[in-house]
């Protein structure tokens, strides 16, 4: 409860700050709109030649693309700014301040900074998903719940991945190259994970789970994710979260010299 209040407070302070730079805000929104419309355009071009792609029709594809921007937007809303700040803290030695607070350091560091304008990306992603949804079957309450659960799992997976990658900063300080793995693979989320050849599909589902983080929510909302799949996703996400948090703690212990 206290953490939720803190989160709201972090968000509010950043919002205040971003509102001061209206031109920037407007330009960023324009960029988001351009990027998303061109991506929708790309999907439309593909579907100019087919009505179905590996079992995904146009409606389902739009839902998927919407989920992609929901997940990516979430990453850019809070994770990217926070993790970048985290690496800066390690570099400058200001991480100490977060460790001295009577609250979870992991929370204070990894959910601390927001790029509020990225809510626009999530919003637009939601619009694309809703448009896609309008083209396919009706949405039952079961699908809606499954979707919400799967989407949260997607967020958690992305969070766990970034947390694990950024933990290396405790040892190597400069890890921009490692983080680039995330950014380049994330792009693959714009298509269903099952269209990729074996090695890439395996990577996108396990080591760098950006593929499943997007594909499974999209399947859930169009009623194509069974209960078993959802259960696996939930368990997998929780496991990923716990494992990455443990890894972070190991990194932190090494940073404070506990294991040296």
């Amino acid at each position: 409860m206290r953490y939720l209040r803190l989160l709201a407070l972090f968000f509010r302070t950043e919002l205040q700050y971003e509102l001061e730079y209206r031109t920037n805000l407007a330009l960023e929104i324009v960029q988001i709109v351009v990027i998303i419309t061109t991506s929708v355009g790309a999907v439309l071009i593909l579907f100019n030649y087919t009505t179905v792609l590996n079992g995904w029709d146009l409606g389902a594809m739009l839902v998927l693309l919407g989920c992609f921007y929901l997940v990516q937007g979430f990453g850019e809303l809070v994770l990217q700014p926070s993790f970048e700040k985290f690496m800066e803290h390690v570099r400058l030695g200001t991480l100490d301040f977060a460790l001295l607070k009577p609250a979870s350091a992991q929370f204070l560091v990894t959910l601390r900074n927001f790029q509020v304008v990225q809510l626009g990306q999530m919003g637009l992603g939601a619009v694309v998903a809703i448009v896609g949804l309008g083209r396919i079957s009706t949405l039952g309450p079961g699908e809606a719940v499954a979707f919400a659960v799967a989407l949260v799992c997607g967020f958690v997976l992305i969070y766990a991945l970034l947390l694990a990658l950024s933990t290396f900063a405790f040892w190597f300080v400069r890890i921009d190259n490692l983080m680039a793995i995330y950014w380049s693979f994330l792009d693959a989320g714009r298509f269903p994970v099952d269209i990729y050849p074996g090695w890439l599909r395996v990577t996108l589902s396990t080591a760098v789970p950006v593929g499943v983080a997007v594909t499974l929510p999209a399947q859930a909302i169009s009623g194509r994710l069974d209960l078993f799949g959802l259960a696996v996703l939930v368990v997998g996400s929780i496991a990923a979260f716990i494992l990455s948090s443990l890894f972070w703690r190991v990194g932190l212990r090494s940073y404070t010299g506990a294991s040296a």
Partner: protein
Amino acid sequence: MIDVYRALFVGQIQAASQYRVQSVLWMLFSVIRPVIFLAAWVAVANAQGGRVASYDVRDFAAYYVALSLVSNLATSWNAYDFEFEVRMGRLSPKLLRPLHPIHYAVVENIVWKMTTIIPLLIVLGFVAVTFDARFRATPVHLVLFVPSVILGGSLAFLGGWVIATSAFWTTRVHAVSTLWDRAVFIFAGQIAPLALLPGALQTIALVLPFGYMRGVPAEILQGAVDVPTAMLLIAVQAIWVAIFYALLQVVWRVGVRQYTGVGA
């Protein structure tokens, strides 16, 4: 001039050797995006019984492998660097030197490409085998590919500089280059071979310069166009390079005057 370039090359090669690992990693990641669209088109082709218009699955593979190669050879991110230099006030000392800043960028680009070309070819070879790519190129195509990719690279480079020059007028180069990048995304052959762009889009793509940066060299290397068409396309590339060269001259001169006028 040759001596100057030799000196610049030595400096850049030394600098690049420090970032060797980094460059190779970035290059590897840059291959992922073409693979994403290749996979999508393979899925479309499979849904349509193995081919889309004139392209079958193996043609798509050849096209995107070629496009990856061309994209890497014809990419320059001077806009970001340049904006940074203008903003940090680092451009002024460079303007004082008796050498146009563009020469640094030329050398930087060439060196970067030299350091990444071999690992790139290895990775692309791997992709080509995975997707069973089939190139239809004849030896004549291969000969024509050389001037085509050089012109494509020059065009991308000059275009990037024109965009970068906007830093003289606005601090929001980022927004401008996003628009430019998205135009490249749509029209340069990234999301689809130019021949597969539907109706009006294809016409627009043939009129705009973007396709001549990447798509045209890629199609020549793949062997998708016949030799006379290829030569015609190369001629258009040359015209575009000339236009952008002239444009850059004008924009640069006006821009520097503006920049030094406000006193930075």
